[in-house]
């Protein structure tokens, strides 16, 4: 599938003062990360310096300037999830994906990251895939979830 170009995505927000973060979200959704040239294009559209646009991109946890896998798997490590077994959950995911937190799989399908609380504390521990929450799953249920995203 042909990806939308940087300018095409960024221009969606040309009439939104302060809309660069929305533009970054859409870029992130399309590419999985923020390509350097996209940040430069965003600076130009929003009339910011490149340094400022870069400073904004590097402030927020959800954005990365390094390429990531197609799917971002994030494991919550905040206190409620820690009490709920987040360390074991991380082990399970690290084993299932064959990578450590902060790494991307060889086939570039998954990146595994830590996250802080995502507000699903009714069933801990929690992980998300592309922002979709999976709270309180049993170990045996996890492979099926990952398989959904394998395609």
């Amino acid at each position: 599938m042909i990806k939308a170009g940087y300018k095409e995505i960024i221009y969606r927000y040309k009439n939104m003062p302060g809309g660069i973060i929305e533009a970054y979200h859409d870029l992130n959704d399309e590419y999985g990360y923020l390509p350097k040239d996209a940040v430069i294009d965003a600076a130009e559209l929003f009339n910011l310096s490149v340094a400022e646009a870069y400073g904004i991109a590097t402030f927020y946890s959800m954005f990365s300037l390094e390429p990531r896998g197609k799917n971002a798997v994030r494991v919550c490590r905040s206190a409620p999830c820690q009490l709920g077994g987040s360390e074991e959950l991380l082990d399970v995911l690290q084993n299932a994906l064959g990578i450590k937190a902060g790494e991307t799989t060889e086939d570039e399908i998954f990146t595994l990251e830590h996250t802080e609380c995502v507000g699903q504390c009714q069933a801990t521990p929690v992980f998300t895939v592309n922002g979709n929450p999976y709270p309180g799953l049993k170990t045996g249920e996890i492979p099926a979830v990952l398989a959904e995203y394998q395609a």
Partner: protein
Amino acid sequence: MVNLTIDGRQVSVPEGTSVLKAAQSIGIRIPTLCFHPDQSIKANCRICLCEVEGSQVLQAACASPVYENMVVNTRTPNVIESRKMILQLLLANHPQDCLNCIRNGNCELQELAAEYYVRDNPFEMKTRHMEKDFSTPALFRDPDKCILCRRCIEVCSVVQTVNAYGMQGRGASSIVVPSMGEKLLESTCIMCGQCIHACPVGAIAEREEIDKFMDAVSDPERIVVTQIAPAVRVAVAEEIGKRTGELPMDAFVSALRHCGFDYVLSTNYTADLTIMEEGSEILERISNNDRLPVITSCSPGWINFCETFYPDLLDHLSSCKSPQQMFGALVKTYWAKKMGIDPARIYSVSIMPCVAKKYEAARPEMNASGFRDVDLVLTTREVGRLFRLNRLDFSKIPASSLDSWMGNFTGAGVIFGVSGGVTEAALRTAYELATGELLEDVEFNAVRGMGNIREAEIDMKGTKINVAIGHSTKAARELMEQVRSGQSKYHFIEIMACPGGCIGGGGQPLTRSDQQRAERIQAVYLEDREAKLRKSHENPHIKTLYDEFLIAPLSEKSHELLHTHYTPRNNQYAVPGYSPQACQKKN
């Protein structure tokens, strides 16, 4: 007026005054780090914290507006303890490098540590272990020393609109970086060095090259010749504990000889020369309506800015080299011949208020003499260090004059050191050249002042010339946007990259305020007023130069030695202004 109590003393100040300023007004000097008199309030260092009755938390004095019956205590044990621990937090993340640091003895953090008798640190020492940045020949960055006050970001973005610096990351891993985390050379940095003045510590400094000077001096084959820029003499006094302007030229020259210079000459001489060359160029281009406005080219920070952000408008620049480079080209040709010195032995130094000059001297095309025209640039600060190294006692130093053939100058050359000076000097000569009349009153007040953009309409016997003077590259940007959109009404524009002009240059003694700049400007105009000759074309040694060597302004010889070309940068970070659409000149 608002009445409040600070440390038990009553004070009355206008509404809107900060606690910091209110305290200052009665002699209570609350310590600060991120505060800067010419910048916005940041309130991030938390050093200026005070107790305010009624508040459970401490308040930053810089960001707290006074209110009626406010009760402030700036020195309670609670406050002192808090400030000290905040200092210790900063110091624990700072290289313990004072002895080696270029800011040893002149550092705001060091000063505070001394005032708060910091003898130990309960926190484990650790630093960021980031790479030092030696990418430019002008500036040097040590990110490990950064205390994240953000004064550099503000001066680069707001005052200069260069935006080379920004923040990267968040929390404890936040750090100031150029552009997208590159080295300075790849960023939009124009090497004006204003960030050096803004930095309270040794995180940003000039590339110190005193060793090269020492090597040259100790080499018996080398003849070490220096030029001194117009803005240096007034300010170098500040390096030796005097007030600005209080070091006479003959004491300065003498001191330089004591440091090891064989010959001491003056850039003010080639400033006069620049007026001859550029004055002729300007008149020619105005009468031919050729690429107007014509824009000055003596500020290398400005040249870098133009090459980076306005590469499509480079043909507006005067083709004249800066006085520094004109000097360099002549000292190893004309002067060497006149003095009977083998040019291969000449080590050509320049003493500049500028760090961008270090870059300018190293530009590949600056070798018209057949050698490197300028071998070494030393800043005013580096000269200050040389003076201290040699332990010169200025109360006993014998007077000494500048050497011949390139040491003679007029007041017009001196005023190059301030914003508006090049214009005024040019007008003094252009007026007489164009009208054939004697100019009685040489002071053009219309072009003087601190306003970032000033304009004047000069009536030269019927011909009206519109001139504009800009200082700081923010002013440059505004003026160049007009040029790009075809809406510039000027014939001639003078641009200086640094606020105030060269007297505020990146290589000057640390410049903390506009007040300091204003004092230096006054000292330069005083020097002009006291000069015997005040018009460049009256300089007898300039006449000699043309008679014996150059023939006439804009001659073939002049073009060979004294004129230059510029190079578009194609810097991907120079947005806006990078995209092809923006670069297309509109007519």
